[in-house]
Protein backbone atom coordinates (compact mmCIF):
# COMPACT_ATOMS: atom_id res chain seq x y z
CA UNK A 1 0.00 0.00 0.00
CA UNK A 2 1.43 3.33 -0.93
CA UNK A 3 1.05 6.17 1.47
CA UNK A 4 1.46 9.51 -0.21
CA UNK A 5 2.45 12.39 1.96
CA UNK A 6 0.66 15.44 0.80
CA UNK A 7 2.51 18.02 2.80
CA UNK A 8 6.19 18.47 3.40
CA UNK A 9 5.63 19.50 7.00
CA UNK A 10 7.49 17.38 9.56
CA UNK A 11 5.34 14.75 11.18
CA UNK A 12 3.97 16.01 14.40
CA UNK A 13 3.95 13.57 17.27
CA UNK A 14 1.55 15.50 19.43
CA UNK A 15 -1.48 13.29 18.90
CA UNK A 16 -5.06 14.37 19.41
CA UNK A 17 -4.63 17.97 18.40
CA UNK A 18 -6.79 17.60 15.30
CA UNK A 19 -4.03 18.60 12.97
CA UNK A 20 -3.85 17.46 9.39
CA UNK A 21 -0.62 15.58 9.09
CA UNK A 22 -0.78 13.08 6.30
CA UNK A 23 -3.27 12.14 3.61
CA UNK A 24 -3.87 9.04 1.50
CA UNK A 25 -5.52 9.03 -1.90
CA UNK A 26 -8.28 6.48 -1.31
CA UNK A 27 -11.23 7.14 -3.61
CA UNK A 28 -10.20 7.44 -7.23
CA UNK A 29 -12.19 9.71 -9.53
CA UNK A 30 -14.42 6.95 -11.03
CA UNK A 31 -15.38 5.80 -7.54
CA UNK A 32 -16.32 9.32 -6.44
CA UNK A 33 -18.20 9.97 -9.66
CA UNK A 34 -20.09 6.71 -9.24
CA UNK A 35 -20.92 7.56 -5.63
CA UNK A 36 -22.59 10.82 -6.49
CA UNK A 37 -24.26 9.67 -9.73
CA UNK A 38 -25.53 6.65 -7.84
CA UNK A 39 -26.80 8.83 -5.00
CA UNK A 40 -28.64 11.10 -7.42
CA UNK A 41 -30.11 8.11 -9.30
CA UNK A 42 -31.35 6.59 -6.05
CA UNK A 43 -32.97 9.88 -5.06
CA UNK A 44 -34.76 10.15 -8.42
CA UNK A 45 -35.72 6.46 -8.37
CA UNK A 46 -37.18 6.64 -4.85
CA UNK A 47 -39.24 9.77 -5.52
CA UNK A 48 -40.53 8.69 -8.94
CA UNK A 49 -41.02 5.10 -7.80
CA UNK A 50 -43.12 6.26 -4.88
CA UNK A 51 -45.30 8.32 -7.21
CA UNK A 52 -45.68 5.43 -9.64
CA UNK A 53 -47.10 3.31 -6.83
CA UNK A 54 -49.16 6.17 -5.35
CA UNK A 55 -49.76 8.66 -8.16
CA UNK A 56 -50.19 12.39 -7.65
CA UNK A 57 -53.73 13.84 -7.72
CA UNK A 58 -55.34 13.76 -11.15
CA UNK A 59 -54.46 16.53 -13.56
CA UNK A 60 -57.27 18.46 -15.25
CA UNK A 61 -57.78 18.79 -18.99
CA UNK A 62 -57.66 16.37 -21.87
CA UNK A 63 -55.54 13.23 -21.76
CA UNK A 64 -53.88 14.32 -24.98
CA UNK A 65 -52.60 17.51 -23.31
CA UNK A 66 -50.98 15.74 -20.36
CA UNK A 67 -48.23 13.21 -19.87
CA UNK A 68 -47.46 13.53 -16.16
CA UNK A 69 -47.42 9.82 -15.34
CA UNK A 70 -45.52 9.20 -18.56
CA UNK A 71 -42.79 11.68 -17.55
CA UNK A 72 -42.58 10.25 -14.03
CA UNK A 73 -42.18 6.77 -15.43
CA UNK A 74 -39.66 7.98 -17.98
CA UNK A 75 -37.58 9.58 -15.22
CA UNK A 76 -37.76 6.34 -13.25
CA UNK A 77 -36.63 4.20 -16.18
CA UNK A 78 -33.90 6.64 -17.24
CA UNK A 79 -32.52 6.88 -13.70
CA UNK A 80 -32.74 3.10 -13.46
CA UNK A 81 -30.63 2.65 -16.57
CA UNK A 82 -28.11 5.21 -15.35
CA UNK A 83 -27.87 3.33 -12.07
CA UNK A 84 -27.40 -0.01 -13.87
CA UNK A 85 -24.74 1.29 -16.24
CA UNK A 86 -23.03 3.04 -13.33
CA UNK A 87 -23.09 -0.14 -11.30
CA UNK A 88 -21.56 -2.18 -14.12
CA UNK A 89 -18.80 0.40 -14.56
CA UNK A 90 -18.28 0.36 -10.79
CA UNK A 91 -17.84 -3.42 -10.88
CA UNK A 92 -15.34 -2.95 -13.68
CA UNK A 93 -13.51 -0.37 -11.59
CA UNK A 94 -13.48 -2.73 -8.62
CA UNK A 95 -11.38 -5.01 -10.81
CA UNK A 96 -9.02 -2.46 -12.35
CA UNK A 97 -9.01 0.23 -9.67
CA UNK A 98 -6.97 0.45 -6.46
CA UNK A 99 -7.60 -1.97 -3.61
CA UNK A 100 -9.95 0.45 -1.87
CA UNK A 101 -12.28 0.17 -4.87
CA UNK A 102 -12.57 -3.57 -4.22
CA UNK A 103 -13.13 -3.34 -0.46
CA UNK A 104 -16.93 -3.00 -0.51
CA UNK A 105 -17.29 -5.93 -2.92
CA UNK A 106 -15.22 -8.40 -0.90
CA UNK A 107 -15.74 -8.12 2.85
CA UNK A 108 -13.32 -10.49 4.61
CA UNK A 109 -16.03 -12.66 6.08
CA UNK A 110 -13.66 -15.64 6.28
CA UNK A 111 -11.27 -13.83 8.63
CA UNK A 112 -11.73 -14.06 12.40
CA UNK A 113 -9.60 -10.95 12.89
CA UNK A 114 -11.91 -9.08 10.57
CA UNK A 115 -15.00 -10.09 12.56
CA UNK A 116 -13.27 -8.96 15.78
CA UNK A 117 -12.79 -5.56 14.14
CA UNK A 118 -16.49 -5.57 13.20
CA UNK A 119 -17.29 -6.32 16.83
CA UNK A 120 -15.01 -3.54 18.00
CA UNK A 121 -16.86 -1.17 15.68
CA UNK A 122 -20.23 -2.35 17.02
CA UNK A 123 -18.93 -1.63 20.55
CA UNK A 124 -17.79 1.82 19.42
CA UNK A 125 -21.30 2.57 18.13
CA UNK A 126 -22.75 1.20 21.38
CA UNK A 127 -20.64 3.74 23.32
CA UNK A 128 -18.64 0.92 24.89
CA UNK A 129 -15.30 1.96 23.39
CA UNK A 130 -13.71 5.26 24.28
CA UNK A 131 -11.83 5.54 21.03
CA UNK A 132 -12.50 4.28 17.52
CA UNK A 133 -9.89 2.57 15.43
CA UNK A 134 -8.22 4.39 12.61
CA UNK A 135 -8.91 3.29 9.06
CA UNK A 136 -7.57 4.40 5.71
CA UNK A 137 -10.31 2.50 3.88
CA UNK A 138 -13.77 1.66 5.22
CA UNK A 139 -14.06 0.29 8.72
CA UNK A 140 -15.11 -3.40 8.67
CA UNK A 141 -18.65 -2.68 9.90
CA UNK A 142 -19.11 -0.09 7.16
CA UNK A 143 -17.81 -2.58 4.59
CA UNK A 144 -20.24 -5.19 5.82
CA UNK A 145 -23.28 -2.92 5.82
CA UNK A 146 -22.47 -1.46 2.40
CA UNK A 147 -21.98 -4.94 1.03
CA UNK A 148 -25.19 -6.38 2.42
CA UNK A 149 -27.51 -3.40 2.17
CA UNK A 150 -26.25 -1.32 -0.72
CA UNK A 151 -24.63 -3.82 -3.09
CA UNK A 152 -27.11 -6.63 -2.73
CA UNK A 153 -29.95 -4.14 -2.34
CA UNK A 154 -28.98 -2.60 -5.66
CA UNK A 155 -28.58 -6.00 -7.32
CA UNK A 156 -32.07 -6.95 -6.11
CA UNK A 157 -33.55 -3.67 -7.34
CA UNK A 158 -31.80 -3.89 -10.72
CA UNK A 159 -32.98 -7.44 -11.37
CA UNK A 160 -36.56 -6.91 -10.20
CA UNK A 161 -36.60 -3.51 -11.90
CA UNK A 162 -35.53 -4.94 -15.25
CA UNK A 163 -38.08 -7.74 -14.82
CA UNK A 164 -40.84 -5.16 -14.29
CA UNK A 165 -39.57 -3.07 -17.19
CA UNK A 166 -39.62 -6.18 -19.40
CA UNK A 167 -43.35 -6.49 -18.77
CA UNK A 168 -43.85 -3.25 -20.66
CA UNK A 169 -41.37 -3.92 -23.45
CA UNK A 170 -42.95 -7.29 -24.21
CA UNK A 171 -42.07 -10.95 -24.45
CA UNK A 172 -39.64 -10.51 -27.34
CA UNK A 173 -37.50 -7.91 -25.57
CA UNK A 174 -34.17 -8.81 -23.97
CA UNK A 175 -35.41 -7.45 -20.65
CA UNK A 176 -38.26 -9.95 -20.69
CA UNK A 177 -36.19 -12.86 -21.95
CA UNK A 178 -33.32 -12.29 -19.53
CA UNK A 179 -35.26 -11.14 -16.48
CA UNK A 180 -39.09 -11.15 -16.50
CA UNK A 181 -39.28 -14.70 -17.83
CA UNK A 182 -37.76 -16.18 -14.66
CA UNK A 183 -38.18 -13.45 -12.06
CA UNK A 184 -41.99 -13.25 -12.27
CA UNK A 185 -42.49 -17.01 -11.76
CA UNK A 186 -39.94 -16.84 -8.93
CA UNK A 187 -42.09 -14.31 -7.07
CA UNK A 188 -45.31 -16.06 -8.11
CA UNK A 189 -46.91 -13.22 -9.99
CA UNK A 190 -46.38 -9.68 -11.17
CA UNK A 191 -48.26 -8.14 -8.24
CA UNK A 192 -45.97 -9.76 -5.67
CA UNK A 193 -42.95 -8.73 -7.72
CA UNK A 194 -44.18 -5.12 -7.59
CA UNK A 195 -44.61 -5.42 -3.82
CA UNK A 196 -41.09 -6.71 -3.26
CA UNK A 197 -39.59 -4.10 -5.58
CA UNK A 198 -41.41 -1.53 -3.45
CA UNK A 199 -40.07 -3.06 -0.23
CA UNK A 200 -36.62 -2.96 -1.80
CA UNK A 201 -36.95 0.82 -2.08
CA UNK A 202 -37.48 1.07 1.69
CA UNK A 203 -34.49 -1.19 2.25
CA UNK A 204 -32.33 1.25 0.27
CA UNK A 205 -33.95 4.25 2.03
CA UNK A 206 -33.02 2.74 5.40
CA UNK A 207 -29.46 2.26 4.16
CA UNK A 208 -29.33 5.90 3.06
CA UNK A 209 -30.54 7.12 6.46
CA UNK A 210 -27.88 5.09 8.26
CA UNK A 211 -25.20 5.90 5.69
CA UNK A 212 -25.68 9.67 5.82
CA UNK A 213 -25.89 9.68 9.62
CA UNK A 214 -22.77 7.62 10.25
CA UNK A 215 -20.82 9.46 7.55
CA UNK A 216 -21.46 12.77 9.30
CA UNK A 217 -20.99 11.30 12.78
CA UNK A 218 -17.70 9.64 11.85
CA UNK A 219 -16.54 12.80 10.15
CA UNK A 220 -16.86 14.50 13.56
CA UNK A 221 -16.02 11.69 15.97
CA UNK A 222 -13.65 9.29 14.21
CA UNK A 223 -9.93 9.69 13.69
CA UNK A 224 -10.15 10.24 9.93
CA UNK A 225 -12.02 12.38 7.41
CA UNK A 226 -15.13 10.88 5.82
CA UNK A 227 -17.38 13.30 3.95
CA UNK A 228 -14.66 15.39 2.33
CA UNK A 229 -12.86 12.22 1.22
CA UNK A 230 -15.75 11.32 -1.07
CA UNK A 231 -15.40 14.72 -2.68
CA UNK A 232 -11.61 15.10 -2.92
CA UNK A 233 -10.60 11.46 -2.80
CA UNK A 234 -8.02 12.11 -0.05
CA UNK A 235 -8.30 10.60 3.41
CA UNK A 236 -7.10 12.99 6.12
CA UNK A 237 -6.19 11.94 9.65
CA UNK A 238 -6.54 13.59 13.00
CA UNK A 239 -3.58 11.87 14.65
CA UNK A 240 -0.33 10.24 13.56
CA UNK A 241 -0.65 6.84 15.14
CA UNK A 242 -0.64 3.92 12.65
CA UNK A 243 -3.86 2.87 10.94
CA UNK A 244 -5.66 -0.35 11.88
CA UNK A 245 -6.66 -1.50 8.39
CA UNK A 246 -6.42 -5.22 7.82
CA UNK A 247 -6.13 -4.91 4.04
Amino acid sequence: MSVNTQTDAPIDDRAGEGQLQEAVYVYEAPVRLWHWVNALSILVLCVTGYFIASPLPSVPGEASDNFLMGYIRFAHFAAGYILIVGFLLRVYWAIVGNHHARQMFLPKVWSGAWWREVWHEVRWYSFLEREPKKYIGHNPLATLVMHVMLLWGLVFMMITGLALYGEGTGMDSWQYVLFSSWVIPLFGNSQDLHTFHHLGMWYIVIFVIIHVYVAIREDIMSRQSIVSSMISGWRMFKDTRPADDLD
Partner: protein
Amino acid sequence: MRETFYDVLRRQGVTRRSFLKFCSLTAAAMGMGPSMASKMAHALETKPRTPVLWLHGLECTCCSEAFIRSAHPLAKDVILSMISLDYDDTIMAAAGHQAEAIIEEIVRDYKGEYILACEGNPPLNEDGMYCIIAGKPYLDQLRFAAQDCKAIISWGSCASWGCVQAARPNPTQAVPIHKVITDKPIVKVPGCPPIPEVMTAVVTYMATFGQLPDLDRQGRPKMFYSQRIHDKCYRRPHFDAGQFVEAWDDEGARKGYCLYKMGCKGPTTYNACSTVRWNGGLSFPIQSGHGCIGCSEDGFWDNGSFYDRLTNIHQFGVEANADDVGLAAAGVVGAGVAVHAGISAVKRLTEKGGQDK
Protein backbone atom coordinates in the same frame (compact mmCIF):
# COMPACT_ATOMS: atom_id res chain seq x y z
CA MET B 1 -61.73 -44.05 -41.76
CA ARG B 2 -62.76 -41.93 -38.83
CA GLU B 3 -65.02 -39.01 -39.42
CA THR B 4 -63.30 -35.67 -39.99
CA PHE B 5 -64.42 -32.30 -38.73
CA TYR B 6 -65.49 -31.35 -42.24
CA ASP B 7 -67.61 -34.50 -42.60
CA VAL B 8 -69.43 -33.66 -39.41
CA LEU B 9 -70.13 -30.13 -40.56
CA ARG B 10 -71.49 -31.22 -43.91
CA ARG B 11 -73.63 -33.82 -42.20
CA GLN B 12 -75.06 -31.05 -40.03
CA GLY B 13 -75.92 -29.02 -43.12
CA VAL B 14 -73.19 -26.38 -42.90
CA THR B 15 -72.21 -25.15 -46.34
CA ARG B 16 -68.65 -25.19 -47.60
CA ARG B 17 -68.85 -21.43 -47.85
CA SER B 18 -69.65 -21.12 -44.14
CA PHE B 19 -66.92 -23.61 -43.34
CA LEU B 20 -64.29 -21.54 -45.17
CA LYS B 21 -65.57 -18.40 -43.47
CA PHE B 22 -65.09 -20.09 -40.15
CA CYS B 23 -61.53 -21.05 -41.05
CA SER B 24 -60.68 -17.49 -42.05
CA LEU B 25 -62.24 -16.03 -38.91
CA THR B 26 -60.53 -18.46 -36.57
CA ALA B 27 -57.16 -17.96 -38.26
CA ALA B 28 -57.58 -14.20 -37.90
CA ALA B 29 -58.65 -14.56 -34.28
CA MET B 30 -55.49 -16.51 -33.53
CA GLY B 31 -53.38 -13.80 -35.11
CA MET B 32 -52.21 -15.89 -38.04
CA GLY B 33 -51.70 -14.78 -41.62
CA PRO B 34 -54.24 -15.19 -44.47
CA SER B 35 -52.44 -18.26 -45.82
CA MET B 36 -53.21 -20.14 -42.62
CA ALA B 37 -56.94 -20.17 -43.37
CA SER B 38 -56.51 -22.62 -46.25
CA LYS B 39 -54.08 -24.72 -44.23
CA MET B 40 -56.62 -24.87 -41.48
CA ALA B 41 -59.37 -25.85 -43.90
CA HIS B 42 -57.17 -28.60 -45.30
CA ALA B 43 -56.36 -29.90 -41.84
CA LEU B 44 -59.99 -29.96 -40.80
CA GLU B 45 -60.93 -31.80 -44.00
CA THR B 46 -58.37 -34.53 -43.61
CA LYS B 47 -57.64 -35.11 -39.95
CA PRO B 48 -59.93 -37.27 -37.86
CA ARG B 49 -61.65 -35.46 -35.05
CA THR B 50 -59.71 -35.33 -31.82
CA PRO B 51 -61.42 -37.01 -28.89
CA VAL B 52 -61.56 -34.82 -25.81
CA LEU B 53 -62.20 -35.87 -22.24
CA TRP B 54 -63.35 -32.94 -20.16
CA LEU B 55 -62.94 -33.69 -16.46
CA HIS B 56 -64.35 -31.66 -13.60
CA GLY B 57 -62.54 -31.47 -10.27
CA LEU B 58 -63.02 -28.85 -7.59
CA GLU B 59 -64.51 -26.01 -9.62
CA CYS B 60 -67.58 -23.83 -10.10
CA THR B 61 -68.25 -24.68 -13.78
CA CYS B 62 -67.66 -21.07 -14.80
CA CYS B 63 -65.19 -22.33 -17.41
CA SER B 64 -67.87 -24.51 -19.02
CA GLU B 65 -70.34 -21.64 -18.80
CA ALA B 66 -67.86 -19.39 -20.56
CA PHE B 67 -66.93 -22.01 -23.16
CA ILE B 68 -70.49 -22.61 -24.33
CA ARG B 69 -70.94 -18.86 -24.77
CA SER B 70 -68.12 -18.45 -27.25
CA ALA B 71 -69.69 -16.02 -29.67
CA HIS B 72 -67.64 -16.37 -32.79
CA PRO B 73 -69.86 -17.13 -35.74
CA LEU B 74 -70.31 -20.88 -35.84
CA ALA B 75 -67.93 -21.43 -32.94
CA LYS B 76 -70.53 -22.21 -30.35
CA ASP B 77 -72.06 -24.87 -32.59
CA VAL B 78 -68.96 -25.95 -34.35
CA ILE B 79 -66.24 -26.36 -31.80
CA LEU B 80 -68.26 -28.95 -30.01
CA SER B 81 -68.54 -30.87 -33.26
CA MET B 82 -65.02 -30.29 -34.34
CA ILE B 83 -63.56 -32.01 -31.37
CA SER B 84 -65.29 -35.14 -30.32
CA LEU B 85 -66.29 -34.20 -26.81
CA ASP B 86 -66.77 -37.69 -25.52
CA TYR B 87 -66.93 -37.02 -21.83
CA ASP B 88 -68.06 -33.87 -20.03
CA ASP B 89 -70.28 -34.72 -17.10
CA THR B 90 -71.95 -31.31 -17.08
CA ILE B 91 -73.33 -31.41 -20.59
CA MET B 92 -73.20 -35.04 -21.70
CA ALA B 93 -76.32 -37.13 -22.25
CA ALA B 94 -75.01 -40.31 -20.68
CA ALA B 95 -75.08 -40.72 -16.92
CA GLY B 96 -73.86 -43.08 -14.22
CA HIS B 97 -71.85 -46.14 -15.19
CA GLN B 98 -72.41 -45.51 -18.89
CA ALA B 99 -70.73 -42.14 -18.57
CA GLU B 100 -67.79 -43.44 -16.60
CA ALA B 101 -67.30 -46.28 -19.07
CA ILE B 102 -66.58 -43.73 -21.79
CA ILE B 103 -63.38 -42.64 -20.07
CA GLU B 104 -62.05 -46.19 -20.00
CA GLU B 105 -63.07 -46.66 -23.62
CA ILE B 106 -61.28 -43.54 -24.83
CA VAL B 107 -58.14 -44.26 -22.82
CA ARG B 108 -58.12 -47.80 -24.33
CA ASP B 109 -58.98 -46.96 -27.95
CA TYR B 110 -57.24 -43.64 -28.43
CA LYS B 111 -53.94 -44.11 -26.63
CA GLY B 112 -51.80 -41.02 -27.03
CA GLU B 113 -54.34 -39.32 -29.27
CA TYR B 114 -56.95 -37.76 -27.05
CA ILE B 115 -56.79 -34.40 -25.31
CA LEU B 116 -57.53 -34.17 -21.62
CA ALA B 117 -59.29 -30.93 -20.71
CA CYS B 118 -59.25 -30.30 -16.97
CA GLU B 119 -61.66 -27.92 -15.36
CA GLY B 120 -60.98 -27.52 -11.66
CA ASN B 121 -58.28 -29.18 -9.65
CA PRO B 122 -57.67 -32.15 -7.35
CA PRO B 123 -57.53 -31.81 -3.55
CA LEU B 124 -54.75 -33.92 -2.05
CA ASN B 125 -55.71 -33.83 1.62
CA GLU B 126 -57.34 -36.96 3.13
CA ASP B 127 -56.27 -38.97 0.07
CA GLY B 128 -58.36 -36.79 -2.23
CA MET B 129 -61.62 -37.41 -0.38
CA TYR B 130 -62.74 -33.79 -0.76
CA CYS B 131 -63.74 -34.43 -4.37
CA ILE B 132 -65.46 -37.71 -5.17
CA ILE B 133 -66.65 -38.60 -8.65
CA ALA B 134 -68.53 -41.86 -9.25
CA GLY B 135 -67.49 -43.08 -5.83
CA LYS B 136 -63.79 -42.53 -6.35
CA PRO B 137 -61.51 -39.60 -5.64
CA TYR B 138 -61.17 -37.20 -8.55
CA LEU B 139 -57.41 -37.55 -8.12
CA ASP B 140 -57.67 -41.20 -9.28
CA GLN B 141 -59.84 -40.31 -12.25
CA LEU B 142 -57.42 -37.56 -13.26
CA ARG B 143 -54.37 -39.83 -13.01
CA PHE B 144 -56.12 -42.57 -14.95
CA ALA B 145 -57.29 -40.28 -17.74
CA ALA B 146 -53.96 -38.50 -17.95
CA GLN B 147 -51.80 -41.58 -18.36
CA ASP B 148 -52.30 -41.94 -22.12
CA CYS B 149 -53.41 -38.50 -23.20
CA LYS B 150 -51.64 -36.50 -25.87
CA ALA B 151 -51.79 -33.22 -24.00
CA ILE B 152 -53.64 -31.54 -21.19
CA ILE B 153 -55.51 -28.27 -21.24
CA SER B 154 -55.78 -26.69 -17.80
CA TRP B 155 -58.97 -24.67 -18.03
CA GLY B 156 -59.22 -21.63 -15.85
CA SER B 157 -57.34 -20.45 -12.79
CA CYS B 158 -58.33 -23.56 -10.78
CA ALA B 159 -56.55 -26.01 -13.03
CA SER B 160 -53.76 -23.55 -13.87
CA TRP B 161 -52.90 -22.07 -10.48
CA GLY B 162 -55.30 -23.35 -7.81
CA CYS B 163 -57.69 -20.39 -7.58
CA VAL B 164 -60.11 -19.94 -4.68
CA GLN B 165 -60.02 -23.49 -3.30
CA ALA B 166 -56.23 -23.25 -3.09
CA ALA B 167 -56.30 -19.82 -1.43
CA ARG B 168 -54.84 -19.71 2.06
CA PRO B 169 -55.24 -21.69 4.24
CA ASN B 170 -56.24 -24.22 1.56
CA PRO B 171 -57.80 -26.83 3.92
CA THR B 172 -58.31 -29.43 1.18
CA GLN B 173 -54.77 -28.98 -0.19
CA ALA B 174 -56.11 -28.28 -3.66
CA VAL B 175 -53.28 -28.09 -6.19
CA PRO B 176 -53.15 -27.17 -9.88
CA ILE B 177 -53.01 -29.95 -12.47
CA HIS B 178 -49.30 -29.52 -13.21
CA LYS B 179 -48.45 -30.39 -9.60
CA VAL B 180 -50.04 -33.83 -10.04
CA ILE B 181 -49.43 -34.67 -13.70
CA THR B 182 -45.82 -33.95 -14.49
CA ASP B 183 -45.10 -36.06 -17.56
CA LYS B 184 -47.53 -34.54 -20.08
CA PRO B 185 -47.48 -31.27 -22.01
CA ILE B 186 -49.89 -28.85 -20.32
CA VAL B 187 -51.47 -25.72 -21.77
CA LYS B 188 -52.69 -23.35 -19.09
CA VAL B 189 -55.64 -21.19 -19.99
CA PRO B 190 -56.06 -19.19 -16.78
CA GLY B 191 -58.88 -16.83 -15.94
CA CYS B 192 -61.90 -17.10 -13.71
CA PRO B 193 -63.32 -17.97 -16.15
CA PRO B 194 -61.07 -17.70 -19.22
CA ILE B 195 -62.37 -15.65 -22.14
CA PRO B 196 -64.72 -17.87 -24.21
CA GLU B 197 -63.07 -17.05 -27.54
CA VAL B 198 -59.67 -17.78 -26.03
CA MET B 199 -60.89 -21.21 -24.95
CA THR B 200 -62.32 -22.11 -28.33
CA ALA B 201 -59.27 -20.75 -30.12
CA VAL B 202 -56.92 -22.89 -28.03
CA VAL B 203 -59.01 -26.00 -28.71
CA THR B 204 -59.21 -25.14 -32.41
CA TYR B 205 -55.47 -24.66 -32.62
CA MET B 206 -54.69 -27.94 -30.93
CA ALA B 207 -57.25 -29.93 -32.89
CA THR B 208 -56.27 -28.33 -36.17
CA PHE B 209 -52.52 -28.44 -36.03
CA GLY B 210 -52.11 -31.39 -33.73
CA GLN B 211 -49.63 -29.47 -31.61
CA LEU B 212 -49.56 -27.10 -28.69
CA PRO B 213 -49.71 -23.36 -29.33
CA ASP B 214 -46.56 -21.37 -28.56
CA LEU B 215 -46.37 -21.18 -24.78
CA ASP B 216 -44.69 -18.74 -22.42
CA ARG B 217 -42.47 -19.89 -19.57
CA GLN B 218 -45.46 -20.43 -17.31
CA GLY B 219 -47.26 -22.54 -19.89
CA ARG B 220 -49.80 -20.03 -21.19
CA PRO B 221 -50.46 -19.57 -24.94
CA LYS B 222 -48.48 -16.53 -25.98
CA MET B 223 -51.10 -15.43 -28.47
CA PHE B 224 -53.48 -14.51 -25.65
CA TYR B 225 -51.34 -14.13 -22.54
CA SER B 226 -48.24 -12.30 -23.74
CA GLN B 227 -49.46 -8.85 -22.75
CA ARG B 228 -51.00 -7.28 -19.72
CA ILE B 229 -54.51 -5.85 -19.63
CA HIS B 230 -52.80 -2.49 -18.98
CA ASP B 231 -50.73 -2.67 -22.19
CA LYS B 232 -53.79 -2.59 -24.44
CA CYS B 233 -56.31 -0.89 -22.15
CA TYR B 234 -58.35 1.79 -23.86
CA ARG B 235 -58.03 3.91 -20.65
CA ARG B 236 -54.22 3.78 -20.85
CA PRO B 237 -53.93 7.37 -22.20
CA HIS B 238 -55.50 8.60 -18.95
CA PHE B 239 -52.91 6.61 -16.97
CA ASP B 240 -50.05 8.16 -18.91
CA ALA B 241 -51.60 11.61 -18.54
CA GLY B 242 -51.96 11.14 -14.80
CA GLN B 243 -55.76 11.21 -14.76
CA PHE B 244 -57.27 8.80 -12.27
CA VAL B 245 -60.59 7.89 -10.75
CA GLU B 246 -60.03 9.02 -7.13
CA ALA B 247 -63.32 7.73 -5.73
CA TRP B 248 -66.22 5.73 -7.11
CA ASP B 249 -68.71 7.98 -8.92
CA ASP B 250 -66.46 11.03 -8.95
CA GLU B 251 -65.96 13.25 -12.00
CA GLY B 252 -63.04 11.09 -13.16
CA ALA B 253 -65.18 7.95 -13.04
CA ARG B 254 -67.80 9.66 -15.21
CA LYS B 255 -65.11 10.72 -17.68
CA GLY B 256 -63.70 7.22 -17.87
CA TYR B 257 -60.33 7.97 -16.26
CA CYS B 258 -57.82 5.27 -15.34
CA LEU B 259 -58.88 2.98 -12.46
CA TYR B 260 -55.31 2.50 -11.17
CA LYS B 261 -55.97 4.22 -7.84
CA MET B 262 -59.09 2.11 -7.35
CA GLY B 263 -56.84 -0.93 -7.26
CA CYS B 264 -57.11 -2.03 -10.89
CA LYS B 265 -54.82 -5.04 -11.40
CA GLY B 266 -54.55 -4.44 -15.15
CA PRO B 267 -50.84 -3.54 -14.86
CA THR B 268 -50.04 -6.93 -13.29
CA THR B 269 -52.41 -9.21 -15.17
CA TYR B 270 -51.63 -11.17 -18.31
CA ASN B 271 -54.78 -11.76 -20.33
CA ALA B 272 -56.54 -10.68 -23.50
CA CYS B 273 -59.58 -8.95 -21.94
CA SER B 274 -58.68 -5.51 -23.24
CA THR B 275 -58.38 -6.78 -26.82
CA VAL B 276 -60.71 -9.77 -27.22
CA ARG B 277 -63.18 -8.53 -24.56
CA TRP B 278 -66.23 -10.44 -23.39
CA ASN B 279 -69.76 -11.29 -24.54
CA GLY B 280 -68.87 -11.22 -28.19
CA GLY B 281 -66.50 -8.28 -27.86
CA LEU B 282 -69.13 -6.14 -26.13
CA SER B 283 -67.24 -5.05 -23.01
CA PHE B 284 -64.85 -6.07 -20.24
CA PRO B 285 -64.60 -5.15 -16.54
CA ILE B 286 -62.61 -1.93 -16.98
CA GLN B 287 -64.96 -0.76 -19.73
CA SER B 288 -67.88 -1.18 -17.35
CA GLY B 289 -66.12 1.04 -14.79
CA HIS B 290 -64.59 -1.48 -12.40
CA GLY B 291 -60.91 -2.28 -12.10
CA CYS B 292 -59.46 -5.59 -13.19
CA ILE B 293 -59.20 -8.03 -10.26
CA GLY B 294 -56.39 -10.02 -11.88
CA CYS B 295 -58.34 -13.30 -11.99
CA SER B 296 -55.95 -14.94 -14.44
CA GLU B 297 -52.91 -14.40 -12.19
CA ASP B 298 -51.39 -16.99 -9.91
CA GLY B 299 -52.58 -16.55 -6.32
CA PHE B 300 -54.88 -13.60 -7.01
CA TRP B 301 -57.12 -14.48 -4.06
CA ASP B 302 -54.18 -14.16 -1.70
CA ASN B 303 -53.01 -10.85 -3.11
CA GLY B 304 -55.08 -8.69 -0.80
CA SER B 305 -57.85 -6.28 -1.63
CA PHE B 306 -59.20 -5.92 -5.16
CA TYR B 307 -59.32 -2.18 -4.44
CA ASP B 308 -55.70 -1.43 -3.46
CA ARG B 309 -52.71 -0.96 -5.70
CA LEU B 310 -50.29 -1.55 -2.83
CA THR B 311 -51.62 -4.86 -1.62
CA ASN B 312 -50.96 -6.44 1.75
CA ILE B 313 -47.82 -8.46 2.26
CA HIS B 314 -48.78 -11.94 3.36
CA GLN B 315 -45.30 -13.44 3.01
CA PHE B 316 -44.38 -12.13 6.47
CA GLY B 317 -47.81 -12.71 7.96
CA VAL B 318 -48.34 -8.95 8.13
CA GLU B 319 -51.59 -7.21 7.31
CA ALA B 320 -49.83 -4.17 5.93
CA ASN B 321 -48.71 -2.98 2.52
CA ALA B 322 -45.15 -2.23 1.41
CA ASP B 323 -45.45 1.44 2.39
CA ASP B 324 -46.71 0.62 5.89
CA VAL B 325 -43.88 -1.84 6.46
CA GLY B 326 -41.22 0.35 4.86
CA LEU B 327 -42.31 3.55 6.56
CA ALA B 328 -42.45 1.84 9.96
CA ALA B 329 -38.96 0.37 9.48
CA ALA B 330 -37.55 3.67 8.20
CA GLY B 331 -39.25 5.44 11.13
CA VAL B 332 -37.68 3.10 13.65
CA VAL B 333 -34.25 3.51 12.05
CA GLY B 334 -34.71 7.28 11.82
CA ALA B 335 -35.70 7.50 15.48
CA GLY B 336 -32.76 5.27 16.37
CA VAL B 337 -30.42 7.55 14.44
CA ALA B 338 -31.81 10.63 16.23
CA VAL B 339 -31.37 9.05 19.68
CA HIS B 340 -27.91 7.79 18.76
CA ALA B 341 -26.94 11.26 17.53
CA GLY B 342 -28.20 12.77 20.80
CA ILE B 343 -26.21 10.34 22.94
CA SER B 344 -23.14 10.87 20.73
CA ALA B 345 -23.37 14.64 21.20
CA VAL B 346 -23.77 14.39 24.96
CA LYS B 347 -20.93 11.91 25.22
CA ARG B 348 -18.64 14.07 23.14
CA LEU B 349 -19.44 17.15 25.19
CA THR B 350 -18.88 15.39 28.52
CA GLU B 351 -15.61 13.82 27.32
CA LYS B 352 -14.35 17.13 26.04
CA GLY B 353 -15.26 18.64 29.37
CA GLY B 354 -13.20 15.94 31.04
CA GLN B 355 -10.20 16.65 28.83
CA ASP B 356 -10.30 20.35 29.61
CA LYS B 357 -9.87 19.65 33.29
